């Protein structure tokens, strides 16, 4: 019985803690759920409400424990630095009301059921107006739901399918348009070249730009071959894929996976003596690539990037200056600011831009819908610019493709060389993907 009493006590304690967590919401940032209505209620919506503040809740869905947690961690650092930075600097609606963002961070471990669960929590418990999200599959499968619930969704996935969804935004060309830029670059380098497309044939993210690449290649007279490269490739699987690619004697390789398998494929290509330039998509190539490939890939490895990386950009240029300031404020060293960090920062910044284009009343009454319309006002009105990081961005209803140009980044053995920006011409890459897949 003594033991029963102990266990009973333990259970009571657990229940109390859990209940407290449920009721109070646990961490500090979200202790004021859905208070956006309080302050502005007293404030008439007409402009000039300087001095007033309101709070909004934003969901922040991240992967810190799943298969993409490595880049996820950097992305989270950047986004959190941005939340902190803009909150402290002050975010003002167009009528001058200061907005404070409470973000609710949830690690869903790249598991869709968890994403769905946390989405419901964001919506029903915190009544969020926007979500800063992560992967392709979860964002795509939630997109219809967010449209119905009228929640702005800014994801780290740049899938073409999201371009036509009413509530999904991102500050980049979609994967297809980026890939088309890569194909255009390849055609420039070597007309009539053969491109082997290495990607996991089973994964939405990897497959996403393939129809567009094929359409673009056909237009530019390049030959393409499909090769399956598993997203979870080890060296042996990567070698098999490279051997398969070598059968068609390619001049270029496109790697559509994430950096893990792309770097192993580059290593395998170096080992097997395939003399072709690999261009990986945006999540397949970053500062760590040469180290991960751990082989001589100089001049033969590169990737697409819609923006100049912080490591090569002028830190005092507009946009990059804010980026580095935010990093400094959050306690990071300048060399810790990498591409993934910047991607997180940019997504939050885009949200801030949306808030700055709404009025307090609009935001309070219509929430996500107001933010969506604020971003879409860039279609006809003044374009959105995240400093010099992006060119002018215009989001139009039914077409959330903000701009089309991308850089091609090549590792030359010592540094990353940026070519471009290149804007793919002649093919509607988004349309090609939507129709092809």
């Amino acid at each position, binding site marked *: *019985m003594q*033991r*029963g*009493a102990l*266990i*009973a006590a333990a*259970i009571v304690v657990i229940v109390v*803690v*859990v209940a407290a*967590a*449920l009721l109070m*919401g*646990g*961490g500090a*940032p979200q202790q004021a759920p859905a208070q956006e209505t309080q302050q502005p209620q007293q404030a008439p919506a007409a402009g000039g409400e300087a001095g007033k503040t309101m709070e909004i809740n934003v969901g*922040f869905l*991240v992967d*810190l*424990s799943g298969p993409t*947690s490595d880049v996820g961690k950097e992305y*989270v650092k950047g986004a959190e630095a941005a939340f902190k930075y803009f909150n402290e600097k002050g975010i003002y609606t167009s009528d001058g009301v200061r907005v404070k963002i409470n973000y*609710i*961070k*949830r*690690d869903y*471990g*790249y*598991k*869709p*059921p*968890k994403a*769905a*669960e*946390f989405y*419901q*929590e964001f919506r*029903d*418990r915190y009544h969020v107006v926007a979500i800063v999200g992560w992967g*392709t*599959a*979860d964002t*795509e*499968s*939630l997109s*219809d*739901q967010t449209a*119905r619930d009228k929640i702005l969704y800014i994801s780290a996935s740049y899938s073409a399918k999201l371009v036509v969804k009413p509530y999904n935004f991102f500050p980049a060309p979609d994967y297809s348009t980026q890939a088309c830029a890569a194909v255009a670059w390849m055609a420039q380098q070597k007309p009539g070249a053969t491109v082997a497309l290495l990607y996991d*044939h*089973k*994964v*939405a993210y990897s*497959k996403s730009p393939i129809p567009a690449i094929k359409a673009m290649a056909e237009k530019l007279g390049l030959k393409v071959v499909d090769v399956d490269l598993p997203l979870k490739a080890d060296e042996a699987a990567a070698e098999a894929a490279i051997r398969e690619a070598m059968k068609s004697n390619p001049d270029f390789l496109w790697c559509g996976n994430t950096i893990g398998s792309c770097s192993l494929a580059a290593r395998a290509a170096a080992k097997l003596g395939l003399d072709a330039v690999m261009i990986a998509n945006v999540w397949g190539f970053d500062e760590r690539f040469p180290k991960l490939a751990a082989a001589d890939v100089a001049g033969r490895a590169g990737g697409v990037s819609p923006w100049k990386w912080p490591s090569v950009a002028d830190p005092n240029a507009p946009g990059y200056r804010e980026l580095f300031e935010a990093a400094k404020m959050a306690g990071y060293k300048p060399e810790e600011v990498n591409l993934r960090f910047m991607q997180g920062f940019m997504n939050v910044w885009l949200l801030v831009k949306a808030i700055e284009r709404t009025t307090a009343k609009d935001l309070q009454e219509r929430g996500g819908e107001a933010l969506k319309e604020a971003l879409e006002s860039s279609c006809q009105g003044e374009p959105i610019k995240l400093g010099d990081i992006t060119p002018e961005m215009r989001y139009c209803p039914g077409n959330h493709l903000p701009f089309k140009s991308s850089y091609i980044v090549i590792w030359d053995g010592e540094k990353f060389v940026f070519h471009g920006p290149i804007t793919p011409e002649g093919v509607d890459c988004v349309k090609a993907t939507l129709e092809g*897949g």
Partner: protein
Amino acid sequence: MPAGVFKETYLELMGFLRYPIHRYSALLAAALLAALPMLADQFLVTKLAFYMVFLVAVIGLNITVGLAGQISLAHAALMGAGAYMAAWLTLHGVNILLALPVAALTAAAVGTLLSLPSFRLKGYYLAMASIAAQELLFYVYQRWVAPDQYMPVNPDAKMLLGLDLSRGPGLYYATLLVTVLAAWTAANIGRSGLGRAMKAVRDNDVSAEIVGINVTRVKALAFAVGSFYAGLAGGLLALHLSAIDYDNFTLEQSIDFLAMVLVGGAGRVVWGSMLGLAAIMAGQSMLEMMFQGNPVYRYLLLGAAIAFFVVKEPEGLIAVLRRVKEYLRLWPFSY
């Protein structure tokens, strides 16, 4: 047994709600569950409904593993069979309520196929065979069933007489109804002749065969029934989600299901499953809320709690509950 209550027939003794307190608490629970959307906030209601989906799946696995002793690590894949069937049917205009039983039967059919290895294998080997089945089905989903990674569910098929079953109270009541029916049936399976045959097979299948139980049939049924529940849960998942992603049905999810059964209490089909689900799935979410965005503590605490309870209570959390119940029954004079 409470004092003053006497059972005169075997039928009474085996009754489902044997004692007045059972009847009262069942009534109270029913009233509470029915009134919940009026009492609690939307978030809790939706979340509870979402957990019920997985509860149905865990109950199914508890029948296969707990009652019949057939270790299965393919449960998530079976859930997938139901989910995809339901989603596919809705895309062809079939109402989700009609799609649910079809989904369950589809999974049951697949599950019966998966019972084949169990006729010859046990323990570790059977577990491995089910892992193989899980991975094969996963490949089929990835490549052939849902090559776009997810299959959308038709929202128009989730309406019943103008009530939207995919959100709010509609979703809650629809899920609740299915879950309660499923749990009720499951609790009764354990007390039926089939349930006893399953337990006999679990405890010693050679002896069971000798006393005249058709072991092959019982094993096949154990898989069929367990998979039926998995399929039902898959159908419910289609009701809850706007798209069915194959990453819902990974080996990891299957392992999680097994952990829920073992941690909760294998063989205690309803209560054990509920406790296991609460400990692992709800526990994970709550830890995530407490240490938001820091998965390290979530893993450490959850893992330590599981290991601790299993070592201290190898029969699962249900044994803890029994102990607590016993303690409270005698409280404050525990001797």
